């Protein structure tokens, strides 16, 4: 990546970030199915997801092809939803892939709130979804160290 690109992405910040939907769910049968049903009816495709759970409740995090429509239909169905910003980083799908990113982040004192991952369709790369306290600083560091940060648009249309 060129110096110009780095400057563009780290100053503007936005194009590099990904919008994720967080949904509050009770830990009971049917909660997840309710959400997937709502999204299916709205013709939404889920790109990737993760579920953080406790004994009582869970937080479902989704990356979808249409964030605005998803939030609208979920809210209409009475769910508690929020839009959160995450960063998607592409790494080669091989031993040490994730480690190489964490090493850089750690060296630069960047804290990871949570992360989850999936493998690209081609099977060549893995995509790690990170939630950072300070996403702009994280993007800056990642780009400077040669990692590929996936823009939101690319991920939604994946």
């Amino acid at each position, binding site marked *: 990546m060129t110096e110009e690109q780095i400057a563009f992405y780290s100053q503007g910040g936005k194009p590099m970030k990904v919008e994720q939907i*967080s949904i*509050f769910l009770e830990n009971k049968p049917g909660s997840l199915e309710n959400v997937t049903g709502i999204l299916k009816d709205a013709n939404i495709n889920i790109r990737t997801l993760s579920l953080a*759970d406790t004994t009582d409740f869970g937080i479902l*995090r989704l990356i979808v092809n249409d964030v605005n429509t998803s939030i609208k239909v979920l809210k209409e169905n009475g769910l508690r939803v*929020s839009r959160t910003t995450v960063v998607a980083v592409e790494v080669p799908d091989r031993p040490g892939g994730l480690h190489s990113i964490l090493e850089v982040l750690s060296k630069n004192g960047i804290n990871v*709130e949570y992360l989850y991952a999936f493998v690209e369709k081609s099977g060549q790369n893995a995509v790690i979804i990170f939630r950072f306290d300070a996403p702009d600083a994280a993007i800056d560091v990642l780009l400077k160290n040669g990692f590929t940060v996936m823009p939101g648009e690319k991920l939604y249309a994946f």
Partner: protein
Amino acid sequence: MIYNEEFETLPREVLESLQLKRLQQIVQRVYHTVGFYRKTFDEAGVKPDDIKTISDIRRLPFTAKQDLRDNYPFGLFTVPMSSIVRLHASSGTTGRSVVVGYTKRDIDTWSELMARCFVAAGLTKNDIIHNAYGYGLFTGGLGAHYGAEKLGASVIPISGGNTKRQIMILQDFGPTAICCTPSYALNLAEQGAAMGVDMQSLKLRVGIFGAEPWSEQMRDEIENKLNLTALNIYGLSEIMGPGVSMECLEGRQGMHVFEDHFIVEVIHPETGELLPYGEEGELVFTTITKEAFPLIRYRTRDISRLIAEPCRCGRSHIRMDRVTGRSDDMLIIRGVNVFPSQIEAVLMGVTEIEPHYQLIVDRSGTMDTLEVHVEVSEHIFSDSDEVRYLQKMEKRLSKDIKEYLGITAKVKLVEPKSLQRFEGKASRVIDKRKM
């Protein structure tokens, strides 16, 4: 000022001997005229002659609201209808209404007690009283009306409703005192302000508010908005109507129960055991002068406590504290009395949650457990979408409940609209211990 100085300042021992004499008479009368009392006294193994000291009242059985409903409408009257000059009735929102009757003398007594209330509030015959309690089957309107006339004050029988007209009359007639529910007082203040009326410059000096539970915070708010002194009055139709007890201007803390006409006790709502002065429990009243519809040890379901310390106003009658809740709603968890309203007070004002909650009481081994289920609001993720943040919030709410109520509760966040909704009185408690 004291309306009936002789009776309101009777030395305690004289007052108690008067109470005993009147109690003995009323117990004889109900036993010999009302089948219900004969039956319950016999079942409890107590005869009217057994009442030899004032504390013998404890041997008498309680009367519950259900007993009144079972004897609807006139079953507990002790006089023929020819002696009854008036009937009132409760609204009956929670079941069959309760009908109460008054003889001419009962009306006179009630009028005097209401007159005592007005004088305790600093009113004289020179005052104009805006009486916005509802007139009709409800005891509030006519009760206050007769008391105002007894005192010789000028009474405006405005009754409830038609707020714009009320505000016009408050400006034009210049009443110096107002009687209504505390929530209606706030409503008047707000609507008046919305109409561009300076509600702080009215001639109102005193407000006598009752018929619903209210708080000290609400008192401050009313006093500020209407620029008057707000006083608390207590009563219930079963016992008489408004004027069973009244706060005095001098003390402004606790309401004097007119003990020459009523005997008040505070009992443990679950066990029925008599509680010492100062302890919170359910109020129980015995009417000792009523003719048409006397009641023996009537369980009010109202929660309060008695204040035995003498009041600076000079009245010897005991005071009862502000009613804090209804025993119907009260839970006893690990020996601690808990009202849903107290939990509500903790949950209120937390933006991440809705004011919809449910309390689930259960027993694990020998320990009672309390779970508070509360619906999350749309602001649930306003700070973070992390699990630990929500868990921290649950813990913080538990800690607040612990600090405020002294009991450990597990707070559980639930999805919106997952808790049952209620049209009328909300039932927020599921007590699994009794199943």
